């Protein structure tokens, strides 16, 4: 009974923790500029994320190793240092963007410029990690994140034409600005399939001490949790499509995105949007900070774990603190958080093939997954994804230049 409750909690917190700066900004832009036409991109990205996360969870649960540890051991440091370096660079930018997102949310509530909130938000992130444990952090963030259901409520109350929404799930070409459409498609994938999510998820499976009998929990959390979580992303897109689309608003800032709540929530629009953006980004900032510690400690063989006493994981604590400080330094430079989000999302796509390739090997290596190797379907999915990832990596920078 307790296990079922924990699984349900895991699904609920996955929903609450799904949207953050990347998914809000790309879905808002996608909806405002192309209506419902990019819903299929969110659905596809979610399927990719759920399948990769399930595989990462399987390596952690069966092989008792996080993804970073598995890649170091299986491929050696020469291979690993490239995706490691790339992931840390992207995590740094994305962390700065998420902290910026929280700062913008507070600005929406207070009117005080977002740059003033960067350091206090960074301190808050650090304090939650420093004093918290994994369950409190994950469940607390996820439950608070349920405020993002406001996007789903808004989309529902706007009563979009259901047949148009349904058509949005079929890939199609737009009748205008193909380059911009392609850029947003690739960005939605990059925003959803973030590298930090996979290692964070696998590290979480080890923090939660999952073992082989818990594989079903892994599957339920990934497919149901992330599946339902994507509905929130779709809520952002649909709301933006119905409200901002007809106004021909190109969402270039979070302040503009907040307008999408006005028709539904009236005078509560700014408050609700700020809460949804702020909590979503705060949760992501905590996860990215923790993940920076995880990935460094696991790669170099230091003791790690947010459930362990801090005195026993000194280098792990120093690592995530240092990365957070560096992100704050980037954040206080004052770059627009939404623009930083879009750049880090594009960089995610560039490194995607490096992220996916190890799965193809690990999921067929009994040392890491014992008898739970990928079948033909899993291997086929990974092979297709590697090729797709490579294609997206090639086009994303030109698309950012011409369509971004």
């Amino acid at each position, binding site marked *: 009974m307790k296990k079922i409750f924990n699984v349900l909690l895991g699904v609920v917190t996955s929903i609450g923790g799904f949207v953050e700066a990347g998914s809000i900004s790309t879905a808002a832009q996608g909806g405002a500029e192309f209506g419902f036409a990019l819903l299929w991109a969110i659905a596809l990205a979610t399927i990719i994320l759920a399948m990769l996360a399930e595989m990462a969870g399987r390596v952690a649960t069966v092989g008792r190793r996080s993804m970073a540890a598995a890649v170091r051991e299986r*491929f*050696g440091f*020469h*291979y690993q240092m490239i995706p490691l370096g790339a992931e840390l660079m992207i995590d740094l930018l994305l962390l700065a963007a998420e902290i910026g997102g929280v700062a913008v949310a507070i600005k929406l509530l207070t009117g005080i410029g977002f740059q003033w909130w960067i350091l206090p938000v960074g301190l808050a992130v650090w304090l939650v990690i420093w004093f918290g444990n994994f369950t409190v952090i994950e469940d607390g963030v996820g439950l608070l994140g349920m405020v993002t259901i406001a996007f789903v409520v808004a989309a529902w109350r706007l009563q979009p034409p259901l047949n148009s929404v349904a058509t949005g799930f079929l890939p199609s070409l737009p009748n205008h600005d193909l380059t911009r459409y392609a850029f947003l498609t690739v960005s939605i994938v990059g925003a959803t399939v973030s590298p930090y999510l996979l290692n964070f998820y696998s590290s979480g499976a080890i923090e939660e001490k999952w073992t082989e009998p818990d594989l079903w929990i892994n599957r339920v959390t990934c497919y149901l949790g992330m599946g339902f979580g994507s509905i929130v992303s779709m809520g952002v897109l649909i709301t933006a499509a119905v409200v901002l689309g007809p106004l021909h608003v190109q969402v270039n800032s979070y302040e503009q995105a907040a307008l999408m709540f006005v028709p539904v929530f009236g005078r509560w629009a700014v408050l609700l949007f700020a809460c949804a953006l702020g909590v979503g980004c705060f949760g992501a900032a905590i996860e990215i900070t923790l993940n920076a510690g995880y990935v460094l400690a696991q790669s170099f063989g230091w003791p790690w774990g947010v459930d362990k006493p801090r005195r026993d994981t000194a280098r792990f604590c120093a690592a995530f603190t240092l990365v957070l400080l560096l992100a704050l330094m980037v954040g206080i430079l004052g770059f627009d958080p939404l623009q930083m989000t879009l750049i880090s999302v594009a960089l995610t796509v560039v490194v995607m093939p490096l992220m996916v390739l190890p799965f*193809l*090997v690990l999921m*067929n*290596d009994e040392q890491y997954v014992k008898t739970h190797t990928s079948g033909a379907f899993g291997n086929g999915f*990974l092979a297709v994804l590697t090729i797709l990832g490579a294609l997206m990596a090639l086009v994303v920078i030109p698309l950012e230049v011409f369509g971004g």
Partner: protein
Amino acid sequence: MTTARLDRLIGRQILTANNRLLGRIEECRAEQRDNSWVVREWVIGSAGLLERLGFGVRLILGWKAGRSFIARWDQVDLTHPDRPRLNCSVDELKRA
């Protein structure tokens, strides 16, 4: 006596006795003798480090397994660890 870093030898190119490139050292097989671990043989492959990635990469790239050789410890000269070379002919090597 020479000291070498085994981790730097893995992935390093190895030359034949007449200075032609044979391939890369992919693996070192060691065995326990008394209380020590000693090198028994070296695995040399033309596919190089990609071989370590195994079936997955070959599946995607359609990589055909290149020629691989196994050299006994006494068939490899490590006097200069940065430039390992065979001290026998290629024909004397075992095929993997």
